[in-house]
C-alpha cells in the first residue's frame, strides 16, 4: 500500500519503513522556530528540563516579529529574553529588527525550509512551509522547549485529504482565494487533525508566493499541515537559496486518502471572508455594501512581492478613500527593498498609504493598526475572529491583495475591476 508525501516524510524522520494514519511516531525535526511571543515561554520551560545546551544551535530559528519593533516595555522585555538566549546558545539564525521579516515570509526567502523536511514552529502558521514540500506544523511553547532539548518530537500521523484544482483561474484570483474558497467549503474544522494536500493542474502552475499563501491558511481549516509536492517551480525558487541539501518526497500513485475533493476553479471568483470566521466566505459579487475604516495589505499570508505588485497595479495614480487608512507591510527587508527598486513604494505613498517595516503587528491586534470599537477593516491577513485586530466590537474581513487595494480606493469592499 502506498503512502502520501506527508506519511513518507514522517516515516523517514521516524526511522520507519512505513507509517499509517493514527499511528504515534517519534520523529527527528530539521528546524524549530519561535517568535517573540512564544519563544520566551519556551525558554522558561527549556530551563526547567535541566540541560545546558540546545540539541543543535544551527537548527533553531528565532524571529522577533509579532510585537516588534518593540511596542511597549513589556514586549521589549520578552524580545530581550529571546535575544539573550540566542547569544548564550550560539543560535546563528536569530534575526534582529532591521534584518528580520515576518517569520513565514523570512524563512522560505532565506532557504531555511526545504522539501522533505519536518519543521515545527511555535506559531500556528508554520504550516506555510508545506508550499515547499515540507511537513511543517505549529506547536506550542512547551513542545518547542522539549524539541530544543531533544531534536525530536512526537506526531500522530495525520490522514490526508487530497484537494485537486482544475480549470483556468479567473482574473484577480490567487492562491489566497483558492484557500479561502476551500475553507468556505469544508469549514474551520473541515481538516481537523488532518493534512491537506493541494494538487492538480492549477497548483502546478501556481507561483510560489501564491502557494505559500495557500499552505499558510491550512491551519484555518484545522489542519496539521498543508502540503504541495515539489516541482520545477519549487526547484527554481530554491536555486541559490537552499541552505541545506534536500530530497523531495512525493505521494505514491496508490496512496490512501481520507477523502478526495475536486474543484473547478472557473467557478471561483475573488473571495471575501466575513466576520468572525475564515469559513464565512462569499464571492466578491455577493458581498454587497461594506464600508471600511482600514485596509491592511501584508502579513505572513500576503506580504510577499507578488502581493505588493498586485496592490501597486491597482493603486497606481489613485488615492486612498478619505475615510480609509491603508497600511502596507512588506513581509521582509528584502521584499521591502525590491518593492522600492520597482517603484512600488512611490505608488503606495502617492496613493496616501502608510508603509511599515516588517511586523505581524495589526494582524493580531498587536500594534501598527489596531481597530477602535465599531471600526471595520479589510485585511489580507488570515484570521477574522472576534477582537482579532483590536476592540472586541470591531470587524475584520479577509481578502486577497487585489480586492484589498481596490477597496482602499473606493472605501468599501470592491472588486478590482471597479477601480480600473
Amino acid at each position: 500500500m502506498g503512502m502520501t508525501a506527508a506519511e513518507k516524510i514522517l516515516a523517514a524522520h521516524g526511522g520507519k519503513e512505513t507509517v499509517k494514519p493514527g499511528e504515534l511516531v517519534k520523529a527527528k525535526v530539521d528546524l524549530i522556530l519561535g517568535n517573540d511571543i512564544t519563544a520566551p515561554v519556551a525558554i522558561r520551560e527549556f530551563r526547567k528540563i535541566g540541560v545546558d545546551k540546545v540539541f543543535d544551535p544551527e537548527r533553531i530559528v528565532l524571529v522577533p516579529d509579532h510585537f516588534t519593533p518593540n511596542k511597549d516595555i513589556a514586549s521589549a522585555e520578552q524580545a530581550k529574553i529571546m535575544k539573550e538566549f540566542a547569544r548564550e546558545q550560539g543560535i546563528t539564525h536569530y534575526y534582529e529588527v532591521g534584518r528580520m521579516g515576518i517569520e513565514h515570509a523570512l524563512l522560505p526567502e532565506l532557504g531555511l525550509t526545504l522539501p522533505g523536511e519536518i519543521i515545527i514552529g511555535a506559531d500556528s502558521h508554520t504550516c506555510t512551509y508545506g508550499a515547499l514540500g515540507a511537513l511543517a506544523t505549529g506547536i506550542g511553547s512547551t513542545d518547542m522547549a522539549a524539541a530544543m532539548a531533544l531534536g525530536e518530537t512526537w506526531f500522530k500521523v495525520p490522514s490526508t485529504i487530497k484537494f485537486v484544482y482544475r480549470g483556468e483561474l479567473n482574473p484577480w484570483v490567487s492562491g489566497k482565494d483558492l484557500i479561502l474558497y476551500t475553507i468556505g467549503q469544508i469549514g474551520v474544522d473541515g481538516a481537523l487533525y488532518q493534512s491537506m494536500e493541494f494538487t492538480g493542474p492549477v497548483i502546478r502552475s501556481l507561483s510560489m508566493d501564491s502557494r505559500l499563501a495557500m499552505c499558510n491558511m491550512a491551519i484555518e481549516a484545522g489542519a496539521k499541515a498543508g502540503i504541495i509536492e515539489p516541482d520545477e517551480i519549487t526547484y527554481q525558487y530554491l536555486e541559490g537559496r537552499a541552505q541545506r541539501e534536500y530530497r523531495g518526497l512525493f505521494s505514491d500513485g496508490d496512496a490512501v486518502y481520507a477523502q478526495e475533493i475536486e474543484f473547478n476553479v472557473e467557478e471561483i471568483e475573488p473571495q471575501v471572508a466575513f466576520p468572525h470566521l475564515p469559513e464565512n466566505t462569499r464571492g466578491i459579487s455577493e458581498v454587497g455594501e461594506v464600508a471600511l475604516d482600514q485596509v491592511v495589505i501584508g502579513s505572513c499570508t500576503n506580504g510577499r512581492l507578488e502581493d505588493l505588485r498586485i496592490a501597486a497595479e491597482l493603486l497606481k495614480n489613485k488615492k486612498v478613500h478619505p475615510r480609509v487608512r491603508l497600511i502596507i507591510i512588506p513581509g521582509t527587508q528584502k521584499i521591502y527593498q525590491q518593492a522600492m527598486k520597482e517603484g512600488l513604494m512611490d505608488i503606495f505613498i502617492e496613493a496616501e498609504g502608510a508603509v511599515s517595516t516588517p511586523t505581524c503587528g495589526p494582524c493580531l491586534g498587536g500594534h501598527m493598526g489596531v481597530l477602535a470599537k465599531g471600526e471595520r477593516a479589510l485585511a489580507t491577513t488570515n484570521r477574522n475572529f472576534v477582537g482579532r485586530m483590536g476592540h472586541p466590537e470591531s470587524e475584520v474581513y479577509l481578502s486577497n491583495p487585489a480586492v484589498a487595494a481596490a477597496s482602499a480606493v473606493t472605501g468599501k469592499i470592491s472588486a478590482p475591476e471597479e477601480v480600473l
Partner: protein
Amino acid sequence: MTLLHGKAWKFGDDVDTDVIIPARYLSTSDPEELAKHCMEDADPQFFSKIHPGDIMVARKNFGCGSSREHAPLAIKSAGISCVIADSFARIFYRNAINIGLPILESPEAAEAISEGDMVTVDLEKGLIKNETKGEKYYSAPFPEFMQEIISAGGLINYVKERLSEKS
C-alpha cells in the same frame, strides 16, 4: 483517583484562542495576569464569576487559531479544572496536555451539559457525571503515550524523566 468537581460554564462552536486570551495581553506570560483576562472578549465578567474547580464545556473545535500556549495557561490558572468539548483544535490539544490542563473529548457530554450544571469528572476512567441532571457520559481514553505525559505532570517532567533514564 483524580476527581474534578465544579460548575459548568457553557460555550459554543469554534471558541478561538483570541477569545480565550486576546493578543493584547500576550506581552506577558505570567499565568496570574493571563488568568484575569481569560475569555474576556466573550464574557468580560468570566474571571470574577468562576470558582476554583469549575469546568468549561464547549462544542466543536475548541481552541482553534493561534499556537499561543498562553490560552490553556490562562484557563488553567483561572482555576478551571477541566475542559470538555466535542472536539479540540490540534495545537490547543497538545498544549493542554503538555502543560497539564485536563481536557476531555465527549460530544455526548458537551451536548447534554447546560450552563450551571454541577459536574464531576473522573479523569482516569474518562467518566463525566452530571449531578444536576443525574446523567453519565464517557470520553475516549487518551493513548498510552499521552497518559504517560499526563501522569508525569506535563511534557517537561516527562522529558526530564526520559533524559535521566538515558544518563
